[in-house]
């Protein structure tokens, strides 16, 4: 099915969806912030 193959090819070309240093930095920052909040919440619970 050539039409399906073209659609699959187009889809695979779109991935990875985001690939940039800035995104990685922002993503890891969010990760760190959430881990910090979890850490603080654990202290609060203790």
């Amino acid at each position, binding site marked *: 099915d*050539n039409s399906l193959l073209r659609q*699959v090819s187009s889809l695979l*070309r779109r991935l990875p969806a985001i*690939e940039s240093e800035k995104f990685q930095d922002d993503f890891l920052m969010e990760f760190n912030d959430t881990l910090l909040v979890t850490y603080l919440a654990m202290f609060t619970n203790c």
Partner: protein
Amino acid sequence: MDIEQKQAELIDHFVKQALSFHGEKGIPLLAALVAEATSHPSLFAFSEILSVPSLAELEGTSYSSSLEVLRLFAYGTWNVYKSNVGCLPMLLPDQIRKLKQLSVLTLAETNKILPYDQLMQELDVSNVRELEDFLINECMYAGIVRGKLDQLRRCFEVQFAAGRDLRHEQLNNMIKTMSNWLSTSDNLLHSIQEKIKWADTMSEAYKKHQKEVEEKVEDMKKSLK
């Protein structure tokens, strides 16, 4: 997906026509069909037409260049045409425009960020304004490409590009990529299920521990009384 839906009817129409042309009388008609298909403003896929058996009859005849043109439009780019211009017939303005549109799709296959300089070189365009006009009017409005034109960084960020016809050798890569994606998704599902089980176990353990502590406190209170 939209572009495929749009051109599905056209592909059907051209394939049916191609199937009806055969024999010696059909050869010039097939050549004319190829010219019409490669000029059509809404058709960007040619592998179905290429796979029609009657087109193989064009090989070795005076119309064999039409078959080469069809192959060029299925898999090639404007640069490929320029380097083989001696072996291929002169293209009509509509065909030139289409080939340039297909070249943009090929470029978008390899990179998501296309610098203006590279695009101007590939498409034989002399200035940025002309390039932007081409990208907006011929590519974005045609629905084959979606993206953002970044004038500050002089590049075209591609968010979506329609798929071109695939050669056999490209299939292996695609299958490998999809297998990787499938195994990653499976692993992710498994790890999510494991985490859910872990969370349930921890919750049960915590409730049990809490109950034990409360019982101990009660016992202690009774013994103190």
